[in-house]
């Protein structure tokens, strides 16, 4: 049963600390997305990769967020330094080309 795997599922950290979230996309998928979900804003696109190349990261605060795909089986999202307003659920999703996306279970981040 192919699925997107995200780690960790939950993370509580102190303000100013670095946070790294990891994602293993579905094997064979060539697009990877990072989304942030909050009650007020819903799902917001943070970054988009196709064939491991970043095509859009305009949704990310560039001074503190970074997203990479070191290889086809791993995508990472880093926040440094973290702030309380970064508290949210972060989802990774993967897909084939321009079709529907398959989402992971998410990482619930709490910054205190």
């Amino acid at each position, binding site marked *: 049963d192919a699925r*997107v795997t995200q780690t960790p599922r939950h993370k509580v950290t102190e303000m100013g600390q670095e946070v790294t979230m990891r994602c293993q996309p579905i094997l064979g998928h060539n697009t990877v997305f990072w989304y942030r979900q909050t009650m007020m804003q819903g*799902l917001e696109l943070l970054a988009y990769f196709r064939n491991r190349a970043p*095509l859009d990261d305009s949704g990310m605060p560039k001074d503190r967020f970074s997203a990479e795909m070191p290889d086809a089986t791993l995508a990472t999202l880093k926040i440094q330094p973290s702030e309380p307003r970064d508290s949210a659920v972060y989802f990774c999703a993967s897909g084939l080309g321009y*079709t529907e*996306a398959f989402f992971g279970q*998410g990482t619930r981040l709490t910054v205190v």
Partner: protein
Amino acid sequence: EDQVTQSPEALRLQEGESSSLNCSYTVSGLRGLFWYRQDPGKGPEFLFTLYSAGEEKEKERLKATLTKKESFLHITAPKPEDSATYLCAVQAHWVGGYQKVTFGIGTKLQVIP
């Protein structure tokens, strides 16, 4: 800028009481409209893709329809297990190198036994 508005924000139905969820959109050239279901504590789960006005798709008690300005998700004789948040998303035609997907806030559906 692409916009997606879903209504109502929340809907409470008795088991067996059919209803519809609405997704209104403004997009510069629609390539596709997606419906997802999201259960608490989980990621969105893909339901349907619609590509052109007049298109309809069905899955069990759900039927999605599309016009030039909105989409409806019809739920026939819902059961408690249909309780979830339903998300609508639109994908524009190729702009600036890729086709961005914009999500609505969602409709939280509760089906009471």
